[in-house]
């Protein structure tokens, strides 16, 4: 099995707080991998590393054997960014541009394609996500689900080898969220991309995942296929799957430190 992503001993701090504590994992190429875990477990931080938005304190990330954490030469990171697409949580569309202009933006910025070709690509991408005829609409005129679809169209503009989704179902009703899951599945099936999804939505995980990475408190606690994830006997995995809340217990000393800020 070929790996698209190899993360080795990734350590990250925000200030004094250690967010990722030596994360090592592999993500297989051509599969849909979901990175799961409770809020605050470090999964979005890991995603930010994978797309090259932040640099780790230490550790390496190889994307198809290219080290995107290497200091100095930025050209490899730039090349990688042209080969990936990201759907951010809020879709991150530019509100002053129409949908067509949003989708065309990366093509205009990174290629020398002529306007008629770009126009056709834009219509193809909008059609892929079920937004034919909405090219002249502005993001503010769309529902939450349509914005996400438009964000996917833009993420797909450059025909990425790896497509990332950050909490795609966040803020969507269950029916719209299920429709988005179905779209992710169809795009993956047809275009054979490596799809990496950060989510904590159980229905999404069960619907789209081939492979699961679970983080807890900045550490990897599970890596494997969906069936193994469902059958896992690890208490942390079972608690997540059974939606059991964490038992919080402070010692009197800890509680005193928390409320006095010492």
């Amino acid at each position, binding site marked *: 099995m070929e790996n698209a992503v190899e993360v080795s001993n990734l350590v990250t701090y925000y200030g004094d707080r250690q967010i990722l504590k030596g994360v090592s994992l592999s993500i297989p190429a051509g599969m849909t991998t979901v990175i799961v875990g409770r809020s605050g477990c470090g999964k979005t931080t890991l995603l930010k590393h994978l797309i090259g938005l932040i640099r780790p304190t230490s550790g390496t990330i190889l994307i198809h054997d290219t080290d995107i954490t290497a200091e100095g030469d930025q050209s490899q990171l730039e090349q990688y960014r042209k080969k990936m697409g990201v759907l951010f949580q809020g879709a991150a569309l530019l509100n002053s541009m129409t949908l067509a202009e949003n989708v065309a933006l990366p*093509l205009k910025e*990174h*290629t*020398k*394609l*002529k306007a*008629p*070709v*770009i126009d*056709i*690509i834009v219509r*193809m*991408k909008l*059609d*892929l996500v079920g937004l034919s005829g909405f090219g002249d609409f502005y993001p503010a005129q769309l529902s939450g689900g349509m914005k996400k679809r438009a964000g996917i169209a833009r993420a797909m503009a*450059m*025909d990425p080898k790896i497509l990332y989704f950050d909490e795609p179902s966040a803020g969507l009703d269950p029916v719209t969220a299920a429709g988005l899951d179905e779209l992710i599945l*169809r795009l993956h099936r*047809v*275009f*054979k991309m490596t799809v990496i999804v950060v989510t904590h939505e159980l229905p999404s995980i069960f619907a789209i995942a081939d492979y699961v990475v679970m983080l807890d408190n900045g550490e990897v606690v599970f890596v494997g296929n969906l069936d193994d994830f469902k059958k896992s006997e690890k208490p942390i995995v079972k608690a997540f799957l059974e939606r059991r809340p964490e038992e919080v217990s402070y010692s009197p000393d800890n509680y005193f430190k928390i409320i006095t800020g010492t």
Partner: protein
Amino acid sequence: MKIDTVANSGYTVVSVAGEIDMYSSPALRDTLLSLVKKKAAVVIVNLKDIKYIDSSGIATFVEALKKMMAYKGRLKIVNVPERVMEIFKFSKLDQVFDIYGSIEDAANS
């Protein structure tokens, strides 16, 4: 990407080999639009030796087809690899292009 153009009696065959991507497709566009400019009646695009085609390649064919339809020219595509056919089907482009199994079939249709 390598493009080989051969003019025959009544049709022109454009054979493309290698990868058609965002960086190479402008050369394919130049070839096809030069044939459109000459109002070529039938252009047969042979995809037998392509390893990869991205959206810009497909869009280039769509643009050429649109321009040829304006003067009743015909753009035919042959030897479409299975992977590419899946994308054509997903995008409903299999119903837009004239697709044939071989150059002979396309030439005789």
